[in-house]
């Protein structure tokens, strides 16, 4: 049944400070940004919480800042804005690709990176890329700001290290001059508009034929977008041989926990994840 629209409150504070004031009110208010997920729940009558703060128009949460060391993405950066940014396209191509493969253009114009993170869908496409790039996130409240590695943000299914009074303000990516291999694959039912069955993002770098740097993250194969640190440990410092491949496959199979659901099966997701890992390592070597 459709949600009853008059039962919802949606206030539009003029500044970030005013928005944080509302959020400090003991959990009565929650943020509402690009709405591409929440409005679906409103329409379906599946959004029980009623009081929202419209943050869509807050300039303090917008914009992409580039310095020599890092890129700072405001939480309200849309998928369209990600694609339009030259530095992101060249240095963080997996994020560019995730933005390009999420929804259609109308969704990309409205959906935000911050929303993709805090909506915490295990099937979201930008989190694996952000995890593989070892992004840092910045949270802000009336009490101040704190920064944490994004890899520590997702704690369990839709459970995150964010307090009721906090907003995600920005996402930071460290720039690197080292020659890195980027590998991003979204596997869906069709080319456009699909929701992932498996999403695989990894970066790697060899030095003297051994893996000197590696980060691997997957979507849709665990209750959270998962950074696969045990698989990384099985690979770091190793040459890429058939033995290493076998050890890495075993580590990844133990680390992810795919399930059967409406979009795919446990078996398919597991096979595809392992094959993508192997394909990535083959390209790396």
């Amino acid at each position, binding site marked *: 049944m459709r949600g009853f*629209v*008059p*039962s*919802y*409150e*949606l*206030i*539009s504070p003029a500044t970030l400070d005013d928005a944080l004031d509302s959020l400090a009110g003991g959990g009565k208010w929650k943020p*509402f940004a690009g*709405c*591409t997920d929440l*409005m*679906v729940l*409103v*329409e*379906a009558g599946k959004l029980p919480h009623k009081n*929202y703060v*419209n943050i*869509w*128009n807050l300039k303090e949460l917008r914009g992409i800042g580039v310095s020599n060391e890092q890129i700072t993405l405001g939480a309200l950066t849309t998928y*369209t804005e990600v694609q339009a940014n030259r530095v992101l396209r060249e240095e963080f191509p997996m994020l560019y690709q995730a933005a390009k493969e999420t*929804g*259609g*253009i*109308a*969704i990309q*114009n*409205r959906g935000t990176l911050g929303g993709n993170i805090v909506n915490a869908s295990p099937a979201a496409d930008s989190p694996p890329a952000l995890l593989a790039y070892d992004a840092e996130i910045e949270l802000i409240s009336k009490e101040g700001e704190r920064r944490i590695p994004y890899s520590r943000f997702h704690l369990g299914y839709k459970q995150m290290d964010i307090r009721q009074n906090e907003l995600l303000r920005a996402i930071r990516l460290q720039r690197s001059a080292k020659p890195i291999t980027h590998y991003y694959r979204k596997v869906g039912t069709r*080319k*456009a*508009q699909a929701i992932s069955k498996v999403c695989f993002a990894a970066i790697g770098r060899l030095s003297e034929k051994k893996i000197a740097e590696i980060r691997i993250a997957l979507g849709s194969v665990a209750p959270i977008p998962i950074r696969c640190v045990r698989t990384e440990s099985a690979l770091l410092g190793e040459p890429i041989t058939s033995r290493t491949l076998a050890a890495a496959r075993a580590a990844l199979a133990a680390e992810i926990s795919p399930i059967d659901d409406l979009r795919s099966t446990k078996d398919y997701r597991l096979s595809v994840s392992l094959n993508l890992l192997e394909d990535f390592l083959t390209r790396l070597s």
Partner: protein
Amino acid sequence: MVKTEISCIVNDKPRTLLAYPMERLLDVLREQLHLTGTKEGCGEGECGACTVIIDGQIVNSCLVPVAQVAGSSIKTIEGIALNEIQLHEVQKAFVECGGGQCGICTPGMVLAAVSLLEKNSQPTEADIREALAGNLCRCTGYMKIFESVFRACRA
């Protein structure tokens, strides 16, 4: 919650809407302004039938709470023709190529194509396919739609 006034521009005319802030832009356009060219297909952002242009960007109006368009400029299919007798190139091409069948997806397809041409006057075939990927046609008349947009690009 009470209704509030929301000022915006719709098809180049200033409008003041009176609505609940969480009302869908789609419903306000159709029911309050009687701009029924904007259609509802899925109501969950999958089909693109409710596409409108806000501040130069296409959006699914079923996913936009009306409070978020305060101060914005909105274009609907009713605002695309050049005047009362002259259609937009994209609309002309749809008529000439038979790009419309049942008509539910047509306004969204036209707006997606208009938006594409505003950003890229010489799109490739791949660009056109990508621009229309968020718009579904229940009649599956995709080839005629594609040909219409292709013709409009070459006009």
